[in-house]
């Protein structure tokens, strides 16, 4: 027996960049977060070759879950060709040899920043959401150690008070994206800065969602078929963005979350935010074949 028979030949980089101990920790923390839905699990969070705040939490989860057959889709603001999505997709493919796709239905793993695709995800798909700030209590309690205690006590009074104050001051809840939601009736989580439009997609979803904040070192999850309920008062219903009647000027699709594009004449035009949905709609219109799957929203209404 010699040292060389006990070890592998030296390699500049492990498969999927992260070393074995980092992946092991991540898997354990993912399992824990699945076991306690919506509860933030602290993890070491390694540095990766990307700046903190640029999807390093999501990236660590993706790198841990992929194998050379995992088909990966990466989106940012709903678009596959957004510069950072392109950068992350290229990195995962480079270090893990994964095939990539832009088609939501074809993907095994979808890493996303700020959006959930419009097509319904299946049980065999995993959605990884990048999270800048994992703490829904941050606006009412910036101190992380105190907030942790508040979660343990299910002490969400100040959270409710904040929502109430917004209604009193502005006539409605002013929360834009990252709408705080109660998971499995126990933990309040931030769904990451997805628009309110996307939050109902998490409720009783067939797919597993893993939310990971690399900089803040917290991971949490929404397992399949788990309740995700936005915090609302019984007499003030939850309201998604009023995009149900908008039509995409490029693809002609109607009833999905849109990007508003300011025009020279002072008006706005709209483009569908889920870029691949737009592409598929154009393909269908040009009779290049129908490749669109079922969507969560039908005629602009959550079904």
């Amino acid at each position, binding site marked *: 027996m010699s040292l060389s028979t006990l070890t592998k030949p030296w390699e500049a*980089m*492990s498969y999927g960049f992260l*070393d074995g101990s*980092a992946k092991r*920790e991540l898997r354990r923390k993912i399992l824990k977060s699945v076991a306690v839905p919506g509860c933030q699990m*602290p993890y*070491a*969070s*390694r*540095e*990766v*070759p990307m*700046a*903190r*705040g*640029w999807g*390093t939490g999501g990236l660590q989860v993706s790198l841990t879950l992929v194998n050379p057959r995992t088909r990966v889709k990466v989106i*940012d*603001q*709903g*678009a596959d*060709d*957004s*510069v*950072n999505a*392109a950068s992350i997709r*290229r990195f995962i493919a480079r270090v893990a040899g994964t095939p990539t796709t*832009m088609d939501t239905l074809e993907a095994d793993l979808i890493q996303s*920043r*700020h*959006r959930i695709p419009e097509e319904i995800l299946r049980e065999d798909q995993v959605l990884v959401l990048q999270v*800048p700030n994992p703490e829904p209590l941050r606006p009412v309690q*910036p*101190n*992380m*150690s105190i907030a942790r205690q508040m979660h343990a006590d299910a002490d969400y009074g100040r959270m409710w008070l904040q929502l109430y104050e917004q209604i009193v001051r502005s*006539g409605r*809840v*002013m929360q*834009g*994206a*990252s709408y705080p939601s109660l998971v499995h009736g126990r933990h309040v989580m931030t769904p990451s*800065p997805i*628009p*309110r*439009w996307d939050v109902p997609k998490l409720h009783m979803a067939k797919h597993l969602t893993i939310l990971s904040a690399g*900089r803040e*070192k917290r991971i949490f999850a929404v397992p399949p078929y788990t309740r995700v309920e936005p915090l609302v008062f019984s007499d003030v219903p939850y*309201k998604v963005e*009023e995009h149900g009647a908008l039509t995409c000027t*490029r693809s002609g699709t109607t009833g999905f*979350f849109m*990007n508003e594009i300011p025009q020279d004449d002072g008006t706005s035009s709209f483009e569908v*935010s889920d*870029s691949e949905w*737009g*592409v598929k709609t*154009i*393909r269908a219109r*040009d009779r290049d074949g129908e490749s669109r799957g079922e969507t969560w929203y039908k005629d602009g209404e959550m079904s």
Partner: protein
Amino acid sequence: MAYVATRGGERAIEQSERLFREEMGGFDRARVKEVKKSLPYLIDRVMGEASLYDEDLAALALAQTGGELYEAVLLLRAWRTTQPRLQVAEPVEQETLFTHRRISAAFKDIPGGQVLGPTLDYAHRILATDVLQGASYAPEPVEPATNPSPAYQPSVSAWQAENDLLDPPAEDPTKGNDIPDLTREPLLFPSKRAHTLQSLARAETGGVLALGYAAMRGYGQAHPTVNELRLAEAEIAVSHPDGRQFSAGRVKVSQAEVVDKKGEKLGIGYAATFGWNEVKCISAATLDLNSPGAEKGSATEEEFFLYHTEGVESSGFCIHFKLPHYVTFQSSLDAMRDAKAKKAAKAPEPAE
């Protein structure tokens, strides 16, 4: 196809990196060597913040990033994190440090003497503009002292403890892999002592200075006296699998002890880091001194300063605001417009 999800993004990011690199041109081992030789204090700072002691790698990171310090530190951290742990070295005791410089502001003279060592403290800060006119800068040679000061010296706080002026921290018997490691586990609060010291050791120099300075100016409860500031080399003692101990080499370290009166005893703050970085050590030790009992949310409270002096995280988050945020922005616009419309609908008719 009318709507092409072009790979425009991919092309653009590739060209943008090429533009950055074109400015600097290529580099080779000679450049790395030159950086290492000519900028030792910058190398020290980068090694400290990366918590990776390797002058060659630090010089390489600086050459590769054109001196963009946050990028250089991130390069080293991302490299470091994937490396296996072969050994945990023996603890380093203060009296075993090969000391180059050691001063105390607390006493006129101290056992072992004030050793000024290498410093620019008393240099007249006059820019050597004649170098640009073609003159070369040749430093005056050092004249060795007739009685060189001892290389190994006790700490000032040891003397104070003997004289019942301060209570030294209790000895921590934790050994080897049982020592909590900030890079392998999350930082939680109240923070483990090892995590606090590790976090300060790899903190961003400017960030520690900003918060430490705030404490010094009066936003902290304690006013630091530099009990001891030391620049030294530490022997890295590791064990061979057959049990023999040997030195794996020396690393440059700096450390600071600052004290303040707390009742009848002195309170003590401590920090140490890889490389010689006095500003960082004094600032970090000042934060450590101020931290016990600090109000939650104040700049001298450990959760506040440990989170906010983490350079890789803070710089990364700062530059992430360059990323598109139009989905969240759209979501906010929707709430704003709706609130405005509601208000307009409710507004009373203007009086005649």
